C-alpha cells in the first residue's frame, strides 16, 4: 500500500536509540547530586590536607608537607596501629559473638520476641549515653566491675581500667563490642531466617550432624549477608570517634587514640586544620580497602545467579 521510505537516520534519533547514551542521560541527575553533596566535602577535605590551614586563617598550598610530617610522627603511627588493632579485634569479637547470639535467637526459645527486643537495646541507646555508662563502669574508684570482683574476693584493689595502656585498649574494645553486637546479631538473625527449614531437614535426613548442618548449610548460605554486615561493621569501627572521645579522649599516653580522634584533636582543639584533614585523608586507603573487600564479597555467587551458565 505505502512504499517504505528509508530516511537517513538523524544524528539525534541515533543517539536516543543508543542505550548507553540513554542510560547516561538517566544517570545524569543522580550523578550531579552525588557530585555536589558527596564529592565536594570530600574534595574540600583532601584539599585542606595539602594546605597549612589553621582555624581562623586560610591555608596556602604546601604540597605533601603535612603527610611528610605525619610519616615522621610516632604518635600518628601509634594511632594507625591502635585503629587497626581496635578494628580487627572488635570486628572479630562482634562477628563471633553476634553469630552466636543470632544462632541462639533463631532457636525456638520461650520469650523469643522479648529477647530479640532486649538485644537491640545497646544499639538504640545513643552512643554518648552508653559511653558515659561505660565511663562509670570503668571508673578508677567506683567501678561496679571492680567492686563486684572485690566482693567476690577475686581481687583486692580496684582495677585501673582506663589508666593502664593495655587495660584501656581492652576496655574501649569491650565497650565498642557491646555496642556493635546488636547490629551484627540482628542482621545475621534476619539472614538465618531466610534459610528454609526444609534444607535443614533434608540435611539431617542425609545424615548431617548439627555441626555439619552449620558448616555445610547455614554458613555458605549466610556468606553474602556476612560480607555486607561485616563490611559495615568494619567501617563503623574504623571511624569510631564518640566512644573513645567520651571514655578516654585518646589517653592514657595516646594508647587509645584512633585516627579519627587524633584527626579531630589536631584539627579542632589543636587548631591545625590542615594536619587534621591530612590524618582523616590517611584513613581513606583503609576504608577503600574494606569497601573493595565488600565489593568482591558482595558479588553474587554463582549459585545465586539464575539462567544459563
Amino acid at each position, binding site marked *: 500500500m505505502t512504499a517504505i521510505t528509508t530516511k537517513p537516520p538523524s544524528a539525534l534519533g541515533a543517539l536516543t536509540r543508543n542505550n548507553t547514551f540513554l542510560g547516561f542521560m538517566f544517570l545524569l541527575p543522580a550523578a550531579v547530586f552525588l557530585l555536589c553533596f558527596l564529592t565536594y566535602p570530600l574534595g574540600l577535605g583532601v584539599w585542606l590536607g595539602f594546605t597549612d590551614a589553621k582555624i581562623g586563617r586560610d591555608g596556602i598550598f604546601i604540597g605533601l608537607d603535612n603527610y611528610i610530617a605525619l610519616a615522621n610522627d610516632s604518635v600518628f603511627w601509634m594511632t594507625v596501629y591502635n585503629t587497626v588493632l581496635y578494628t580487627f579485634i572488635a570486628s572479630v569479637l562482634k562477628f563471633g559473638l553476634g553469630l552466636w547470639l543470632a544462632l541462639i535467637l533463631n532457636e525456638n526459645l520461650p520469650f523469643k520476641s522479648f529477647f530479640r527486643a532486649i538485644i537491640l537495646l545497646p544499639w538504640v541507646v545513643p552512643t554518648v549515653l552508653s559511653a558515659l555508662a561505660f565511663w562509670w563502669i570503668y571508673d578508677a574508684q567506683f567501678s561496679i566491675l571492680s567492686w563486684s570482683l572485690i566482693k567476690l574476693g577475686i581481687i583486692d584493689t580496684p582495677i585501673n581500667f582506663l589508666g593502664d595502656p593495655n587495660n584501656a585498649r581492652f576496655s574501649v574494645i569491650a565497650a565498642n563490642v557491646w555496642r556493635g553486637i546488636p547490629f551484627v546479631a540482628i542482621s545475621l538473625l534476619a539472614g538465618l531466617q531466610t534459610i528454609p527449614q526444609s534444607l535443614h*531437614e*533434608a540435611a539431617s535426613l542425609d545424615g548431617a*550432624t548439627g555441626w555439619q548442618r552449620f558448616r*555445610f*548449610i547455614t554458613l555458605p*548460605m549466610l556468606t553474602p549477608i556476612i560480607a555486607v554486615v561485616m563490611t559495615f561493621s568494619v567501617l563503623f569501627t574504623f571511624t569510631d570517634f564518640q566512644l573513645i572521645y567520651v571514655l578516654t579522649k585518646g589517653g592514657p599516653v595516646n594508647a587509645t587514640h584512633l585516627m579519627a580522634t587524633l584527626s579531630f584533636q589536631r584539627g579542632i582543639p589543636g587548631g591545625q586544620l590542615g594536619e587534621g584533614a591530612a590524618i582523616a585523608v590517611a584513613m581513606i586507603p583503609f576504608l577503600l580497602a574494606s569497601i573493595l573487600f565488600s565489593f568482591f564479597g558482595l558479588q553474587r555467587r554463582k549459585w545465586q*545467579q539464575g539462567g544459563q551458565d
Partner: protein
Amino acid sequence: MASVEFANVRKSFGTHPVIKGVDIEIADGEFVILVGPSGCGKSTLLRMLAGLENISAGEIRIGGQVVNGLAPKERDIAMVFQNYALYPHMTVADNMAFSLTLKGASRAEIDKRVKPAAEILGLTHLLDRFPRQLSGGQRQRVAMGRAIVRDPQVFLFDEPLSNLDAKLRVAMRAEIKELHQRLKTTTVYVTHDQIEAMTMADKIVVMHDGIVEQIGAPLELYDQPANLFVASFIGSPAMNMLKGRLDPNDALKFVTEKGVVLPVAKAPESARGRALIYGLRPEHMTIADGGIPASVVVIEPTGSETQMIMRIGGDDITGVFHQRINARPGETVGLSIHAEATYLFDAESGKRLV
C-alpha cells in the same frame, strides 16, 4: 529395603490431636500411597516416619525395629520434599553426593554412585548446574536423584508432583513408577490427587481427619469402598449419592426423598427401615428407552465418552456414557441403572451395607 509398620500412632500439636491412632502395615518393597483431603495429617504422618516430628504415642517400626527414639539420620530414610529442598549453593552433582560427602566417601566412590543415578534420571548433562538454573521438572528429578544415591531402606515422597504442570505430572508419574519397579525400594508417597494414587499405588491408604478410613489396592477401594468418605473420595467424576429409604413393600426398590424409585440388587435385613444413601458410579448407567426419566442439565461430549448431568426428581446426578448421545439440555432421556453395581450406605454412620 524394609517393611514399615505404624501401630496405633498418635500425634498432637499442643493439645490439638492431628493423628488419632493410625495402624498401617507396609510390606517390604511395596509402593504405598497416602491420600486424603488437605489437612488430614498425611505430611505429619510421613514426617513422623522420617523422624522430623516426634511421636506422641504408639510405635513406628522400620524393618521390625522400633524407631520412635531414633534421629532422622539413623533411620536410613530418603525423602523427596514438596519444594524439593535442594541445597542452592551446591551443584546438581554435589546435591546428589551430599550424603556420601558427609560420610567421607572417596571421590571415586561418589562418582560410582552419582553417575548411574544421574544416568537413570537423565541428569548427566546437568551435573554442573546449580538448582537455580534448572526447570521445575529437572529439580524434581535431582531431588529423586539425591534419594536414589542414598540407596535407603525407605523412600518418602511428599506431594512431589504438585508443583508441576499437568503434562509433566503425568510423565513424572510414569517415571517414578518405573523407578520403583527397577529399585524395588519400599516407598511411601503422599498426595491428595486420587488419580495419582489410583495409577501408581500397590496399596492406597485413605486418610481423613487424622484417622485411616480404609486401606486396600486401588481397585479394591474403588469397587468396595468401606464407607461414604472413601466412596466419594475415590473415583472421578465422583460417585452419585442420593438420600432415601428402601421401599417397605419391596426391598429391591430404593425410594429417594423426592420419590424416585431406583433398583437395588440385594437388600440385607440391616438396611430395611432406616435412612440410607444410594451410591451409583457415573459409568454404571446407560441410556435406554423406558428407563427412569431424567432431564438433561448439561451434556459434555469429549469424543471417546459423553458426560451428562441429569436431574431425576430434583436430584442432580452425573453419568459417563460410552455411547454417542444426541440429547439437548432440557430434553428427557430414559436412564437404565445397573442394579448389581449400586451401593447402599447407612446415612448415619456412613458405613457401606451393600
